[in-house]
């Protein structure tokens, strides 16, 4: 049985300027995530990548119960949780944890590092003294002397490690990490990822990593899904997707990743056209206005999800 089984997940947000929208008889909300499906096994890592604003963090917020879904189902550990009550969530939150996108902003500025890392333990009535604080700091490679510091006295990377310590404090079954290594240097990034891999090997925690760092996705994820405008446009085993992207957006994304070599010549895929908005979707394929391979049919017909040999894509004329 999969640990996490998401089927046709839909999530809506209220729109700005509701009055204007009402006058024009437009809908007062919009779909930020429209029909996303995936499964995740214990001990596996899924990489969620894609366009900024495509709905990745929104999916994360919904998975951990901070935002209601408007449709579809989320099964966690065999039980449907998309309609879970507040009391269910008190239990579920011990089994799922989240590392947030803003490293410093997500840490309460008035708490010391010691209180921050032990907070999840305290909330759940577990021992949360100095020993635990030091163990958790040690786990993420921070010296014990950091216990008395406040978030603004940390570098971005140090704040990130505090976030990892908090997320691992309760030994969760599912860890959702939104940009877990943004703002870290290469060595510390390696440390954090090795740490996650180590914890995963030991505890079998399943991990969803949301990131823009393609180098990281290539090394640490088993499966990857590429999002564009609230939908998955491609999904499959990471290695295969990198070796042979089927969707043009995936190809453009992978080609944009710069190489650490000033002499490198790049074969970029130039994306033209307006950046789309989920409030005002293009006709046909979401990506067609910017797609260098688009044909006439792409403007008219919305591509469905095509599944073949363990991979899937949403394109009428896959590469």
């Amino acid at each position, binding site marked *: 049985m999969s640990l996490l089984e998401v089927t046709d997940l839909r999530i809506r947000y209220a729109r700005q300027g509701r009055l204007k929208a009402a006058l024009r008889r437009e809908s007062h909300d919009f779909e930020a995530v429209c029909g996303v499906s995936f499964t995740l096994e214990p001990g596996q890592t899924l990489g969620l990548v894609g366009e*900024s604003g495509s709905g990745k963090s929104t999916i994360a917020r919904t998975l951990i119960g901070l935002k209601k879904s408007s449709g579809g189902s989320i099964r966690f550990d065999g039980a449907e949780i998309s309609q879970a009550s507040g009391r269910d969530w008190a239990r579920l939150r011990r089994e799922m944890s989240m590392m947030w996108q803003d490293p410093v902003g997500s840490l309460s500025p008035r708490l010391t590092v010691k209180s921050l890392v032990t907070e999840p333990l305290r909330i759940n009535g577990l021992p949360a003294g100095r020993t635990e604080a030091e163990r958790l700091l040690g786990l993420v490679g921070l010296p014990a002397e950091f216990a008395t510091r406040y978030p603004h006295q940390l570098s971005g990377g140090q704040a990130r490690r505090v976030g990892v310590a908090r997320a691992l404090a309760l030994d969760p079954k599912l860890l959702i990490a939104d940009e877990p290594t943004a703002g870290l240097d290469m060595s510390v990034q390696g440390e954090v990822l090795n740490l996650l891999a180590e914890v995963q090997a030991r505890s079998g925690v399943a991990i969803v990593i949301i990131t*823009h760092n393609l180098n990281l996705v*290539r090394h640490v994820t088993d499966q990857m899904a590429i999002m564009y405008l609230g939908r998955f446009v491609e999904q499959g085993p990471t290695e295969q997707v990198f070796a042979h992207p089927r969707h043009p957006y995936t190809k453009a994304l992978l080609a944009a990743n710069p190489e650490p070599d000033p002499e490198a010549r790049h074969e970029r895929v130039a994306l033209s056209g307006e950046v789309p908005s989920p409030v005002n979707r293009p006709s046909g394929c979401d990506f067609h206005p910017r797609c260098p391979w688009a044909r006439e049919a792409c403007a008219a017909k919305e591509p469905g999800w095509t599944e073949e040999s363990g991979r899937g894509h949403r394109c009428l004329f896959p590469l």
Partner: protein
Amino acid sequence: MASAAVSHRTAEAPQTADPLVSVEGLSVDFATPRGTIHALRDISLEVPKGKVLGLVGESGCGKSTLAYSMIGLLAENARVAGGAIRMGGQDLAHLKPKAWRDLRGTRIAMIFQDPMTSLNPVTTIGKQMIDIQYREPISRSEKRARAIEFLEQVQLPDAAAKLDVYPHQLSGGMRQRVCIAMALLTRPDLLIADEPTTALDATLELQIVTLLRELQETFGCSVLFVSHHLGTVAELCDEVAVMYAGEVVERGHVREVFHAPRHPYTQALFDCDPARIRQATRQLPTIPGTLPDLRQPPAGCAFRARCSKAFGRCAAEHPPLHAAGPGQVARCHLNDPAEDVA
């Protein structure tokens, strides 16, 4: 696109005749209940006019502290313990708050690591973008139009509609693009960008980097670009400074430093870049050990304890910045001509 960026690089030494900003022996301390942290020690570097200087290095090595000191936004417990930051006849390290208010937002602008640092959570994007243009002698509707124009430049979808939203209604990458647009609105001489693209997807990052390049060429401004993404630094920057534990350990043209790093820390940092590892691996390379305690920086070389090439001299003697190649300097005894490098 890449080739266009590459062709701008000239072969002159990084000590350009007429830098926009020169940091001279800057030291910054933080007072904490547990003692004084010597976060920056004797930093010297120049931001060349009309060029992009990259700043890379270990988390916590002082990149943001250096950036903040160049825009007068050091934390309250910070103290400039020595040195100067010279820009157009002024010493930015010892400027009065009033003088800072005139400089900030006209000659110097900053894009922060965390976009919420510069956005007000309870004010709409539009109001913030109009307010920041308070110096411009144009009407409110013109300011509004300019705001939209710059939001379009950073590829924000539905730019006009975004003026009415609050920061929390935007995705992380959208917030960062708003910050970039706001910084560009003021047309600064020096743009400090502290990891401006970490929250952006690769295609957008490429667009923003290209945009920064174009704007930098059009307006001739200088950019200090702090980043952990070595690929982006390689693509965007003319010169690069590498920091470790509060010091600049290597400096030079991007091409030289990336192809022939002369400080063991720079080499180790590059070796850790997963982009350089062709075969997929779960065990990523790291630099063993931790940063030294910045309350008592070590007497010799700050990197010695983690350096595979350390020898007798490194423990006793603090290495100066040795010339290490054309326009390249490195704070490592191995570059001392007196040392037998064999």
